[in-house]
């Protein structure tokens, strides 16, 4: 994915300033920084979820595999199936586990039961949730634990076989064991998918990500490989943040 000179405005407030960024395929890229620096906004722009919010504008372009995602000829629903998103709070839909995972495929027109069952199993396996729920696929998803629910959300987007995964602080509010399991899952998923992650903290970024970008007040201050950006940041602001001078 390539982001070029991207500016984003909520009404008159400019949330993102001239972001230019290149995400490499099949890597984990972490977007980190203090609160309110535009990380979620950027993430939501990537699958055009920001279209849902009233009064937003943008300039600049975002490319997925060379296509401008804001091209009016492009099908929005297709785009969102290629770029899946997981939110900071687990958001199971009020249905069974099976129906949750099958939701996406059903919407895109797949109705054969056998095909759906296969897709659901494959997605749940990739999200490392299959073993735990395979015997209760038709019970309510609301009964799962927080960590399981988040993996369910991951399985949900995997069922659509996307190319890019967007994860906005997926481990927020989860206990360390669930967090560890999600991070492990991400490590496995990286082999197939490009992942853009807003980490819970810098430590998570350094555990999980390949490259990272530091965001401050809507600006991309710097980006680079994880080992470099956290140990020898080029910009002073990055250094201050990484060393904890502000937070």
């Amino acid at each position: 994915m390539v982001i070029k000179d991207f500016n984003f405005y909520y009404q008159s407030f400019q949330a993102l300033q001239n972001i230019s960024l290149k995400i490499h395929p099949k890597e984990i890229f972490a977007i980190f920084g203090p609160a309110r620096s535009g990380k979620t906004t950027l993430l939501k722009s990537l699958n055009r979820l920001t279209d849902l919010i009233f009064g937003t504008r943008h300039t600049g372009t975002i490319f997925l595999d060379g296509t401008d995602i804001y091209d009016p000829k492009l099908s929005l629903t297709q785009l969102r199936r290629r770029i899946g998103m997981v939110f900071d709070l687990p958001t199971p839909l009020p249905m069974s586990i099976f129906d949750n995972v099958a939701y996406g495929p059903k919407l895109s027109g797949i109705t054969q039961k056998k095909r759906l069952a296969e897709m659901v199993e494959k997605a749940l396996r990739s999200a490392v949730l299959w073993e735990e729920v395979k015997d209760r696929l038709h019970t309510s998803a609301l009964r799962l634990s927080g960590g399981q629910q988040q993996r369910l959300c991951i399985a949900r987007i995997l069922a659509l076989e996307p190319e890019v995964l967007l994860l906005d602080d997926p481990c927020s509010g989860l206990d360390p064991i669930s967090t560890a399991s999600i991070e492990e899952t991400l490590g496995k998923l990286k082999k197939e998918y490009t992942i853009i992650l807003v980490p819970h903290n810098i430590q998570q970024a350094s555990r999980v990500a390949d490259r990272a970008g530091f965001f401050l007040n809507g600006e991309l201050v710097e980006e680079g490989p994880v080992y470099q950006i956290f140990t020898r940041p080029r910009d002073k602001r990055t250094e201050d943040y990484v060393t904890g001078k502000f937070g």
Partner: protein
Amino acid sequence: MVYRTRYITQGVAKVLVWMAALSTIGVMILILFQVLAKGLPALHLRFFLDSPKSMGREGGILPTIVGTFALTAAAILFATPLGVGTAIFLREYTRESRISRIIRFGTDCLAGVPSIIFGLFGFVFFVIYLNMGWSILSGGLTLAAMILPTIISTAEEAIKGIPPSYREVSYSLGGTKWQTVMHTILPSALPGIFTGILLSVGRSIGETAAVILTAGSSLMMPTSLFSPIRTMSVHFYILAREGISIEMAYGTGAALILLVLLVNTVANWLLNRYIRHRV
């Protein structure tokens, strides 16, 4: 001392307020008791299954029961798609704009129109102008117009209560607006919508002024949508006012009250359960 007057005032106020509350409960009990006590004796099985004889002096009230159900069903059938559709449009397809303000204003105004005006309207529009005559159809359409605002506002409340995250999830999985509405929003809003429908049912059962002018007052069993009918409330009114039979009146009234109480109790129970569930 100044102290004392304040507390005396409070004491007096307390007594008055208590009296008010108790008298309200008291009157309600009186009203219900009066009609139910005198009417229950008339409520035997034949009462519900027979047709009235000699203008209602004897027999049962079966056609009126059928009429009530038919009319209410027709009203719900017409009003629910329109009402829910309006709520979906207001909540999902627009934001606060001129159109939504106009629609809401119209709905609020419609809610305030008295039933006799609906009766006049139904009479001149459905019965005469559209040539439907006094019929289940005319009555049903008129009642539908009356309950429309209720359905719209309860449906809106139900849809409003759905967490925004459901929508985000559905859209981020590639759902279109309509798919999101159909597969996520409507299913979740169903309990609230259903409660609104029940409340409207309760209201339709007791509605008299608009019904008399549009559905007629025939005591015969209806044979089609175009048949005129008499509902229980209309029958009750005619019996009472024309002084035809006081026992039959009491009986019909008791049946009417029981039906309305049943529907409203279920509706309120659902309302409380549904609200608590949300919170």
